[in-house]
C-alpha cells in the first residue's frame, strides 16, 4: 500500500471514461479472431450436415436443369472455401444474403424477429433478477434455517426441471384450467402493451427458472462471504440496524459480481430461448433458426448464429465495462 496520497484520484471525470473506452476497444479487437473462427465453424459445420437445400426446396418434382440453375445461382457448386469468402465479403458489406426458402433478405428477417426474442429474454431476465437476488439474500441471511434449505431446494428444481415440461404444466394450469393467460402466441408490444406483457408472462417465467436459480445460488454465496467480512462488523459496530447493514453494506458489495454474471446470463437467455419459443409458439429468433436448420436454409442459419454470437460477445464486453463502472477499486486507480 502506498502512502502517496497525492496520487489519489477521487473523481471519475479524468481517468475513468478513458480507461473504459480503451477497454472496449481492446475487447473488440480481441473479439475479432473469435468471430473469424466462429464464422468458419458456422459455415463449415452446416456444410457437413447431410441434406441439400435445393432438394428440400424442390421437394419431389425436381427438374435437373432447374436444380443446376439454382445451384449455380446460390454458388453451391463452388469449393467451400470460396463460398465462405464470398459470404464473408457480403457480410462485411452488411449483406447476409437471402433466404433460400422465402427469398427475403436475411437481415430483414433477423431485424423482424430480434425484438421478439429480446423482449422475451428481457422479461425472463427481469423475472430471474426479481426472484433470484432476494431469494439469495434471504437464504444467506437465514443461513442453515428452513428458509435457506427451502430456497436451495427450489433453486435445485429450478435448474433441473425441463423447460418443455414446466411450460406445458403452466399452459395447462393458467391457460386451460383457469383461463387467465393466453396459452401461446405473440402480441407486439406496440399493438397492445398489456396483452403483450401478459402473453410473455409464462414464457418469460419458464425461460427464467434456470437463470433465477443460478442467480440465487451466486447471490447467496456472495452474500455469505461479504457478511463475514470485517467491514460488515464495522458497520454493525456503528450501530446500524440489520437491514441497513444487509442492504447498504453487504448487498452493495455482493452485487458487483452478480451484475457481471447477469449480463453474461442475458446473453445465454438470448441464445437459449429456442425451446421456450417452440413451446409457446413465439415467432422469435429461436423459431427462425429451427425452421432454417430443418430446411437447410444456409444463409439464414449462418446469419442468425453469427448475429447471436455478436450479441453474446457484446454482452461479454458490456459485463467487463459494467464491472469497472460499478467497482470503485477499478474505477479509481490508486
Amino acid at each position, binding site marked *: *500500500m*502506498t*502512502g502517496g*496520497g497525492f496520487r*489519489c*484520484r*477521487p*473523481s471519475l471525470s479524468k481517468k475513468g471514461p478513458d480507461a473504459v473506452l480503451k477497454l472496449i476497444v481492446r475487447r473488440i479487437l480481441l473479439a475479432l479472431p473469435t468471430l473469424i473462427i466462429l464464422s468458419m465453424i458456422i459455415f463449415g459445420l452446416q456444410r457437413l450436415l447431410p441434406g441439400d437445400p435445393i432438394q428440400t426446396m424442390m421437394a419431389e418434382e425436381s427438374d435437373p436443369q432447374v436444380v443446376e440453375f439454382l445451384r449455380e445461382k446460390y454458388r453451391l457448386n463452388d469449393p467451400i472455401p470460396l463460398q465462405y469468402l464470398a459470404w464473408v465479403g457480403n457480410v462485411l458489406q452488411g449483406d447476409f444474403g437471402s433466404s433460400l426458402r422465402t427469398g427475403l433478405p436475411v437481415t430483414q428477417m433477423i431485424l423482424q424477429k430480434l425484438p421478439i426474442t429480446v423482449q422475451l429474454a428481457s422479461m425472463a431476465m427481469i423475472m430471474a433478477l426479481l426472484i433470484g437476488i432476494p431469494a439469495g439474500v434471504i437464504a444467506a441471511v437465514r443461513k442453515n434455517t428452513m428458509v435457506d434449505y427451502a430456497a436451495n431446494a427450489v433453486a435445485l428444481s429450478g435448474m433441473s426441471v425441463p423447460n418443455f415440461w414446466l411450460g406445458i404444466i403452466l399452459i395447462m394450469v393458467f391457460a386451460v384450467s383457469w383461463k387467465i393467460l393466453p396459452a401461446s402466441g405473440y402480441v407486439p408490444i406496440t399493438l397492445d402493451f398489456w396483452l403483450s406483457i401478459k402473453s410473455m408472462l409464462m414464457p418469460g417465467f419458464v425461460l427464467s427458472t434456470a437463470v433465477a436459480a443460478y442467480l440465487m445460488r451466486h447471490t447467496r454465496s456472495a452474500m455469505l462471504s461479504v457478511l*463475514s*467480512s*470485517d*467491514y*460488515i*462488523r*464495522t*458497520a*454493525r*459496530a*456503528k*450501530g*446500524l*440496524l440489520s437491514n*441497513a447493514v444487509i442492504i*447498504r*453494506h453487504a448487498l*452493495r*458489495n455482493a452485487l*458487483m459480481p452478480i451484475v457481471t454474471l447477469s449480463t453474461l446470463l442475458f446473453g445465454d437467455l438470448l441464445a437459449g430461448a429456442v425451446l421456450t419459443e417452440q413451446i409457446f409458439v413465439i415467432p422469435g429468433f429461436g423459431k427462425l433458426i429451427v425452421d432454417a436448420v430443418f430446411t437447410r436454409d444456409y444463409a439464414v442459419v449462418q446469419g442468425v448464429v453469427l448475429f447471436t454470437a455478436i450479441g453474446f460477445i457484446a454482452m461479454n464486453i458490456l459485463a467487463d465495462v459494467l464491472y469497472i463502472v460499478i*467497482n*470503485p*477499486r477499478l474505477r*479509481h486507480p*490508486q
Partner: protein
Amino acid sequence: MTTTEPLLSVENFSLGFGSKIDLIDGISFSVEPGKTLCLVGESGCGKSVTSLALMGLLATTPARITGGKARFDGKDLFTLSERARADLRGNDIAMIFQEPMTSLNPSMTIGQQIVEGILRHKPVSRDAAQARALEMLGLVRMPAPEKRFHAYPHQLSGGMRQRAMIAMALANAPKLLIADEPTTALDVTIQAQILALVSRLQAETGTAMILITHDLSVVAEVADHVAVMYAGRIVEVGSVDDIFSDPQHPYTLGLFGSVPSIGRRSSTLATIEGSVPPLEHMPRGCRFATRCPFADQRCMDEVPPDYEPKAGHRVACWYAPLEAHVRAA
C-alpha cells in the same frame, strides 16, 4: 482503584462455545470515565472476544455469554434488547478494530462511512453530519481531509485507513472507546503516531478507553490501569504503577521477561515455557499452573483466591505476595 463511579464495570463475566469449560471464566474489571484500561495478554487469551461481547457483536462468532454482568453508564448491557444495544453501539460505545485494511467498506467513500454513523445516532442534517465528518478527519490529522472525504478506502494507506476508522469511532463522542490492537497491522513508525493520536483525542474528549494490546511498551505509555489476562481469566489487575513496579503474578513477571530491551544483551530472550493448554485440558485450579515455575498440586486443583497487596491491585495466585513465598520456598 479510586472511589469514582466506574463507567463500565464487568463482573464475573464468562463466555463459552457451548462446551463444559468456558473460554472466558468469570473475569471482572472496571473502567473509570476518561481513563484507559489496558487489557494485556497473549493471542487467544480472550481479549478480542471480550471486547466483541461488550460491543454486542458476538452474534457473528460462535461464542455465547454464559454468565456475569456488565454495567455501563447505569445500564446492564447483557440484558438490553438488541435494538437498545444497537442504539449504544457507535454512539456511547465505539470500537476500533485491528485490521484497518479490511475494516472499511470498499464500495463507499470514507466520508459516506463516517456520515452514516453520525446520521444513525444524532438528529442532525446531512450537511451538519458531513461538516462533523470533515472536522473529525481534520482532528485525526488526515492529510488533505477534503480530498480524503471523497476517497475510497483502497486509495488510502494503512495508517490513513486507521485514522479514518478512529474518526468514525469518535465522531459521536462516545463515552467508551474499545481499541482492539489498533496498531498491530501498521508499520512501526505509524504505530507510534496512531497511538499518540488516540491518547491525545482521548484526553481532549474525555473518552474512556479499553486498549487491547500485547505490547507492554504501549501499556507503559498510555494505561491508567492494567488487566493482565491469561487463558480467559484475569490473573492480575491494578494501576499501571502497581503492575510495572510490583508485579505479583508469575505470568505478569513472565510477560516482562519476554520484552526485549535495548542495552541489556542476554544471549536468549526470556520466554514463558510451554504453551496454553487446549480448553479441555485446562487445569481445574489456576489456568497458568501448567506453565508456572512455582506451581504445585494445589495450584492445579484449586482456583486461587484474589489477593490484594493494596487497594485496587488484585492478583489471583496462591503464592501472592510472591516475594514472601518464593523466599520462604
